[in-house]
Structures are given as structure tokens and as C-alpha cells.
């Protein structure tokens, strides 16, 4: 742990709160992410995990507290700005551009690379051609990394479920993210698919030297992937540490089994 604390802080959430009416979805929640580490976020349904993702990515603005990303205050950022700063995410309910082709899904996420103005597009100037070509190559490259290159021209909605999840990750990777947020990447997968997914995430983590924060219910996925786990209940941190430590923590077991205090 001591080595980690010296490395650069990617994300810093400081006593963040989010209220919906009278409900405190997250309550004085603090979290620090260090560069290159894989973090896990666990907790029973309704514990506030996705709400944390939504406050980081600007879908929700926190009711109180501060969020910093590489020392920049992103507390009241808007969603597209978060993406442009390099926070990529996937969604719990897959959100692809379902009528578009697999390739287009990734190409659409490269809008930041398409740094040309309207005249360049309308008159098809060399700059437009060059950038568009680069984007296509980049997108194809990403699909290859994900093993989806054979399906590049299929409709995204026609892909099997597991591939759709991978495509969503490919799309997030098109942002060249520094931080990747994965919302239940293994949801709905069987044991074999789970193992494959773990290897796959490990692969992109090393290859792109990413910092990853993932929400997951499958404890074996968490145990295999994460260096550090935070357990959440009713919007509050109830335990944190290595996967093994958290797994054996009494408060976590109680939260999952619903033991009355």
C-alpha cells in the first residue's frame, strides 16, 4: 500500500453526497484512486454504486462534497466534459448505438479525434480525409484488440450479449481514457464467459496502463481483478481493503445477508 500512495492520484472523491428528495443515495462518500490500480466497488442492490459512477461522470451533480480528477475540480462537470477529460464508462444496462454497425459504434466515439471544422467536411478537404482515415484505422484497431473485427459490419444490436459488453468497452476505449469505469461488466455471463472477461480486462489494463474502477456482484471476478475493494451499503463505505479482507469482513457479510443491527 505504501508504494501506491506515493503514485499519482487519478481521482479523489471527498465526502461526496447525493440526495434524491429525502433519500441519501450516497452519504459522505470518500474514495481515492491511484494510477494503474484496479479498484472494485461492491455492495447490495441500491447501495449507491451506480450513483457514484453518475456523480463522477457528471450525470448527477453532487449535493455536497468535491470530486477531483488529476487535481482538476470536476464536481459540477457535464457528462461530455468528463468523457473529454478521459473518463470512459460502460453502463449497467448496455447502451449501444443499436441501429448502427459495430464499427460505427466505435467510430462515433472518436469525435474528439475528428478535429476539423464544418467547411473541411463540406468541401472534403485533405484534413477531413486524413482524420477520417485515421479514425477508421483506430476504430478497426480497437475492434481487433477486442476480437470483434470479424463482426465490424454487423448491427450492434444483433451481437450476442457478451460481445455487446465488449463493444461497449471498445467504445469507451476510443476516448483514450485515463480512467475506465465499468458498471457490472460480468452481469448475465456464465462461468466460462466470466473467466474470459477477467483475462480480457486484465489485458487492456496492462496494454493501455489504465486505472479501472468496476462495480461487480460476482465475487470471483472481483477477487481475480481488483487490487483494492470498497464495500458500500446505504451510500456509506462499510469496509475497504484487499478482496480477501473485504470478503471476510463481518459488516459486509451482514449487509449482503441483511442482518439487523
Amino acid at each position, binding site marked *: 500500500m505504501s508504494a501506491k500512495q506515493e503514485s499519482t492520484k487519478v481521482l479523489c472523491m471527498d465526502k461526496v453526497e447525493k440526495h434524491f428528495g429525502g433519500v441519501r443515495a450516497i452519504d459522505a462518500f470518500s474514495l481515492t484512486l491511484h494510477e494503474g490500480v484496479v479498484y472494485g466497488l461492491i455492495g447490495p442492490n441500491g447501495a449507491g454504486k*451506480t450513483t457514484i*459512477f*453518475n456523480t463522477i461522470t457528471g*450525470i448527477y451533480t453532487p449535493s455536497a462534497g468535491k470530486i477531483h480528477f488529476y487535481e482538476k475540480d470536476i464536481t459540477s462537470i457535464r457528462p461530455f466534459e468528463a468523457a473529454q477529460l478521459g473518463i470512459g464508462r460502460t453502463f*449497467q444496462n448496455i447502451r449501444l448505438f443499436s441501429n448502427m454497425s459495430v464499427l460505427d459504434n466505435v467510430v462515433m466515439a472518436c469525435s474528439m479525434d475528428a478535429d476539423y471544422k464544418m467547411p473541411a467536411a463540406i468541401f472534403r478537404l485533405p484534413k477531413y480525409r486524413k482524420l477520417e482515415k485515421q479514425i477508421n484505422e483506430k476504430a478497426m484497431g480497437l475492434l481487433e484488440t477486442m476480437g470483434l473485427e470479424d463482426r465490424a459490419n454487423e448491427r450492434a444490436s444483433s451481437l450476442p450479449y457478451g460481445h455487446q459488453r465488449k463493444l461497449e468497452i471498445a467504445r469507451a476505449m476510443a476516448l483514450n481514457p485515463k480512467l475506465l469505469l465499468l458498471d457490472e461488466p460480468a452481469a448475465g455471463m456464465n462461468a466460462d464467459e466470466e473467466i474470459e472477461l477477467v483475462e480480457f480486462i486484465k489485458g487492456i489494463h496492462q496494454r493501455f496502463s489504465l486505472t479501472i474502477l468496476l462495480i461487480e456482484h460476482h465475487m470471483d471476478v472481483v477477487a481475480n481483478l481488483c487490487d483494492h475493494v470498497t464495500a458500500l451499503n446505504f451510500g456509506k463505505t462499510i469496509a475497504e481493503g484487499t478482496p480477501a479482507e473485504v470478503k471476510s469482513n463481518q459488516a459486509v457479510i451482514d449487509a449482503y445477508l441483511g442482518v439487523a443491527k
Partner: protein
Amino acid sequence: MFFQQLITGLSIGGVYALIATGYSLVYSLLDFSNWAHGEVAMLGAYVAFMAISALNLPFLAAVVLGIAGAALISLFNERLAYRRIRHNKSPNMFLMIAAMGLSTTYQNAATLVFGAKFKQYPNVLPISSVSIGNLRIGVLDLVSLIITAVVLVVLIIVINKTKFGLNVRAIACNSQTADLLGIKVDKCIATVFLLAGALAGCAGILLGMKYNVYPTMGNVGVKAFIASVLGGLGSVPGAIVGALLLGVIETLASGYLSSGLRDLISFTLLIVILLVRPAGLMGVDVQEKA
């Protein structure tokens, strides 16, 4: 002067409310703007008119026939178009486009069948006005105000106190869950269309009595649409408040400023209100779940 205008405004707003509540009910269930609703009111007015002029029926019988006709046409729209689109699981946008198509169809069909000429109901009510204190209020305005008040109170009681109303509210919350709970969703939706149609028919006849009957009178649907947006789409009390507000503003605007600028003023006000409250006065701004 001001109070007189206020009463006139409320009476017009009441008629808008009859259409707007139907609009809102349908919106709350199916999440789309039923553009053909104004045309249902127009057709109701024509049915009543034809009952008088062609069948020589007494006025009250014609009114009943007009309301029933409007209700059936509203149900016909649901059976012909909306239900199929729903069962195809097409996007909601298609419901609105279909409704737009139906609206154009009815408006022009009415022109083809009845001609573009204005038709008049026989004078059943005296065109005089009654004096209350130093206010002079048209008999028609007063009758219309009373009728709408009664109808709307009954509607609210139906929605809040009966089993049918409970089913409607359940479907509005989540139609799939309602279906699982054993509510006959399609039947319930059909009943709502009948009810909305009847309310619109009532409004059409009142409008016909106050002004005339003509093919483009269904454009009052736009007013009802504005009223329900003002109040918050899908909220019945919101629709009533929005409609009364719109009626009063329109009357005051034409009374004190200029009748030419009436619509401009109400539209500007609409935009201002939406900028302050993006989901209308009584609507709930629901955020999509990530």
C-alpha cells in the same frame, strides 16, 4: 371589467380543460401526444350538428349523440392505429406521427364532406346575459362554466376514487407491471380513449354553441396541448390548471392589449414558464436512469 374578463376566461379555459384532460390521460398512459384529439372534438360537434339538421333530433338527444360519436371515434383511433403500433413495440414517436396523420385526415375529410362553411347550432340558450352585482355574464359562458366544472369534478373523483381510476394510475406508473398484476391493460386503455373522446365531444359541442362548427375548429387541440404542457404532461390536475390559466391569459390579453397578439402572448408565456419549470407547473422532471 376585470372580473367579467376573468369569468369569460375561466369559461373558455374550462372548455380547453375538457380537451386537455383527455390529452393528459392518454399521455400519462402511452407517453405520446395525441394530436388527433382536437379533431375528435371537431367531429363530435359535427355529429351533433348533423343530428339536429339532418335527423331533426331535439337538441339534448343530439348532444348525447355527439358525445357518443366523439367517444367512438377516439376509440376507433386507438383500435385502428395506436394499438397496433404499441404491439409492434415501435418507438413512441410513431404514435405521435400516426396521430398527426389522423388529424390531417379528419380535418380534410370534414372539409370534403361538410364543406369549409361555418355551421351554426340553433339557439337553445338565450343570447342574453345575467347580471350579478355589476357583472354581466353571458348565459352561455355561465352554463359552459357549470357544465365543465361538474364534468371535471366527476372525472377527478373517477380517477382518484374508483377501481378503474386505480388501474389507470397503475398503468401510468408502469404498464408492464400492471399487466403482470392482472390489470387488463388494453381494455383499460380503450376505456380511457372512450372517456377522453366523450370529454372532447362535450368540448366540441360547447365550442360549437359559443362560436360555430367548422372543419379547422380541431385546432383547439393545439390550445389543449399547450395547456397540458403548461400544467405538466401527463398530469390531469396540471392540465386543468394549465387550461384555466391559458383561457384567462388569452382573454385578458385580447381584452387589455390586442386580440391580434393574443396567441403571441400566450406562446411567449409558455416558453417563459417552461424555461423556469422545464416539466410544466405540476409535472415531475424524471431523470433517465443510467
